């Protein structure tokens, strides 16, 4: 069986403009490869092809790419899931391309940093060993802490495309909510103050692209809705 693959190529040191390059890969009948396997086999054919990857099992979030128009992790996306026909692989949209499928994620991390993604606790007398949580308090973090920062969600969000310097984006806001509802965190007001403007949170119009593409099955739109409710409740 032959696989037709079209890959976005751009080397700023050589190319004037990006272009799509077609490849063909011979695959054994009945074998369903992951897209990452396909890309690595093509890299053997053409060593100039650049991509990021590390764990190759959906944990590190390095190989986020756009496959047939939808963001996802190449390592856990089977070729069969992309349907029949040519596979088109592009870098994550909205982020500057460093080379081929490698994007510059500075904007993404800058927004992530803004939400102070760490526990803040101003307890004057911290417990001797650890901050305990009840099972119910801990359960509130489920569906939030699992984010691996692959940027599939933020780079599929038009609001992030248009205002990457001001809108935190779904990944950052998911983390923001993770700390807002953490019973051990005492900086809720400070965190909400930082988010209380016309762009950081309220540029989300709930189109749910983030939910549609999240490879971990998380729901950033719901978390953003909860942040909006928190901001609203303290304003009225």
């Amino acid at each position: 069986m032959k696989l037709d693959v079209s890959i976005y190529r751009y080397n700023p040191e050589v190319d004037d403009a990006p272009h799509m390059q077609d490849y063909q890969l011979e695959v054994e009948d009945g074998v369903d490869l992951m897209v990452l396997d396909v890309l690595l086999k093509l890299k053997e054919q053409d060593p100039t092809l650049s991509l990021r990857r590390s764990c190759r099992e959906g944990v590190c979030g390095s190989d986020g790419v756009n496959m047939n128009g939808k963001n996802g992790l190449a390592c856990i996306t089977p070729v069969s899931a992309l349907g029949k026909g040519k596979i088109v692989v592009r870098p994550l949209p909205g982020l500057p391309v460093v080379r081929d499928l490698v994007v510059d994620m500075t904007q993404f991390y800058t927004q992530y940093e803004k939400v102070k993604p760490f526990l803040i606790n101003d307890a004057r007398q911290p417990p001797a060993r650890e901050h305990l949580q009840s099972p119910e308090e801990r359960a509130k973090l489920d569906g939030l802490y699992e984010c691996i920062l692959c940027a599939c969600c933020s780079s599929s969000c038009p609001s992030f495309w248009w205002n990457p310097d001001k809108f935190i984006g779904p990944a950052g806001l998911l983390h923001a909510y993770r700390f807002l509802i953490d019973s051990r965190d005492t900086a809720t007001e400070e965190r909400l103050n930082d988010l209380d403007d016309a762009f950081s949170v309220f540029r989300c119009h709930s189109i749910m692209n983030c939910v549609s593409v999240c490879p971990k099955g998380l729901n950033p739109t719901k978390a953003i809705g909860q942040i909006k409710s928190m901001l609203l409740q303290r304003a009225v």
Partner: protein
Amino acid sequence: MVTNQASVKRNGVQDYVSLRTTAVIILAFTILMTWFFITTDNITFTEWQGLFSGLAMKVFTLATLISIMIHVRIGLWQVLTDYIKSVKVRGLLQWILNLIAFAYVLVGLFVLWGV
């Protein structure tokens, strides 16, 4: 680049609440008008004039026009800050769109109280 100064220090929560409350009023007016068109067999000038002659309908229509003005001001500011990056062009477009929305309210005011 969109700066806080260019957006006249807009308040996210206030915009969020304003957008939704005005949307409810606009939706209610739309439903009322749809109901009127469905239930009225023959729409004549008399029927039309009768609908808008009551004070309650005048106030409701005016409230809807004002809601549209507020909705346009916030909604299109959001759309324009997404797509128009030149501050001058965006400022001009915002001014024109706000002026049109305001004109609708003014004209509506005269039309309604002329019924």
